[in-house]
């Protein structure tokens, strides 16, 4: 993970600041940095989103392809995650340097989406046991500015909201062989219901308090963090502790409560911006990467 080296007095300054609820950039312990969200930035995907949270820049593309359902779940489709840490973010990611971080993030995403109610997988089924939609979610890290997991989960939710899967019809032949027909109208598609898609909230323990949305400098001062995934209704779907320090059960409980509260506000803010973008329709001016 990209990290900065800090001197001892600098770390002390940050820790004391967090104790008094005044971080280096003036935020409180539960404030996020200003986020920019844009969907439909990549034209050859079924859905895409780009999220900029401070100096963290994430691009997510979702491609819907036809595949065979898994043996244990014959009437459901599934999601596949792949995370690419581009060397654009930091020189440490050159070559195979970013693989470890990429697999860690991908495994966390699998865990977060492992709950049955996150995405309605039954709607992705075309023919039980034979055909289903597989959603390949590709995450690209363009810049690392702290708090990767939160930004990635926001971008994944926005991309899934933006995904348009073409409608297919199954035609039965006289011999019994099935044919799949794609509709002619390119705008005839099904959308996913993302109401229950969880978002990850990272709570970093600094000193005696915990902060949300830590920058790279704050991550260097924190010994332990808790990653929790929260749905819009405030339900926890998964929890993971990272870092070499320890957390005692009291603080874990407090962090969970903070995470649920912050997670709910995060979902409300994200849904509002996605609805606003949707309502602009074709008149929206796409900014993309050269704006």
């Amino acid at each position: 993970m990209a990290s900065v080296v800090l001197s001892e007095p600098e770390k002390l300054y940050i820790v004391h600041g967090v104790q008094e609820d005044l971080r280096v950039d003036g935020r409180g312990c539960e404030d996020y940095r200003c986020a920019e969200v844009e969907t439909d930035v990549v034209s050859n995907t079924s859905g895409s989103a780009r999220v900029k949270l401070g100096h963290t820049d994430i691009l997510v593309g979702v491609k819907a392809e036809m595949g065979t359902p898994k043996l244990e779940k014959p009437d459901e489709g599934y999601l596949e995650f792949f995370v690419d840490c581009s060397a654009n973010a930091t020189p440490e990611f050159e070559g195979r340097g970013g693989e470890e971080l990429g697999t860690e993030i991908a495994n966390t995403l699998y865990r977060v989406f492992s709950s049955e109610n996150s995405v309605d997988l039954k709607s992705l089924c075309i023919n039980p046991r034979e055909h289903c939609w597989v959603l390949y979610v590709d995450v690209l890290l363009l810049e690392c500015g702290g708090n990767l997991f939160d930004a990635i989960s926001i971008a994944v939710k926005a991309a899934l909201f933006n995904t348009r899967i073409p409608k297919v019809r199954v035609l039965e032949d006289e011999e019994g062989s099935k044919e799949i027909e794609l509709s002619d109208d390119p705008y005839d598609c099904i959308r996913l219901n993302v109401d229950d898609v969880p978002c990850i909230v990272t709570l970093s323990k600094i000193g005696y308090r915990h902060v949300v949305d830590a920058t790279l400098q704050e991550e260097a001062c924190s010994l332990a963090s808790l990653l929790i995934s929260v749905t819009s209704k405030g339900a926890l779907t998964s929890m993971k502790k990272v870092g070499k320090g320890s957390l005692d059960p009291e603080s874990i409980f407090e962090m969970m409560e903070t995470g649920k509260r912050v997670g709910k506000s995060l979902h409300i803010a994200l849904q509002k911006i996605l609805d606003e973008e949707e309502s602009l329709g074709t008149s929206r001016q796409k900014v993309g990467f050269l704006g």
Partner: protein
Amino acid sequence: MAAISMRLPVARKAVGPSASRGAEKHLVAPGDTITTDTGYMRGHGTYIDEEKLIASVAGAVERVNKLVCVKALKTRYNGEVGDIVVGRVTEVQQKRWKVETNSRLDSVLLLSSMNLPGGELRRRSAEDELAMRDYLQEGDLISAEVQSVFSDGALSLHTRSLKYGKLGQGVLVQVSPSLVKRQKTHFHDLPCGVSVILGNNGFIWIYPTPEQKDEEAGGFTTNLEPVSLSDREVISRLRNCIVALVTQKLMLFDTSILYCYEASLPHQIKDILQPEVMEEIVLETRQRLLDLEG
């Protein structure tokens, strides 16, 4: 209470040229022809190809009599003798420290260029060499002056005055070196109770003003007491103001930072980084600076 603000991205609009500039700046990109007149001497950032003077970096052309050079706008720090820099120690080697100063090569701080505690003047011994790590470790921040430039371009720093040395508690902001204006002094004590060091290499250090000037400290004893909340607020506000000025590409010097700070007072500290508030504050700062000049 959690505050989360999300927004849709807005295309950046080009800020028009400010009216105060006398002559239009001649901006060039790498490969642009500057002049075909052979009477000029070529300076930094240019090369001669088929009797034409061509720019090799992106920046503004500067002409001094017969010398033509191109000053790049976004570049690594090119040190000159006498510059004040703020750097971070990356390595501790035999008889010297390697310091990162945002230049092409790490700068060097020789043990003999470092002032000993108490202001002693003596030859450095083997014990001093072994005790190097007690003075400066990896990750420590120092303020220093450029003593000389090696033939390969690396800078040799020195901390031979009591005002230089290891830095204590504070906040570091990293900006592009071309945005720091060259002035007589780079150590400023602002009236709001906070001091700032504007390093020529783009590292800006903001710290609370020490109450009394320690004579023998020389930068070795770091004050580890917690900084008061009021000082913290001023430091955070100043840091956000500097980030705002840098985003809008305004030159950084003590007056511009102070005006920006005063313009930001009606807003909350965390709101300063929102794009609309940033534009408003910087516009007001620019206006006041123009009034000051004209």
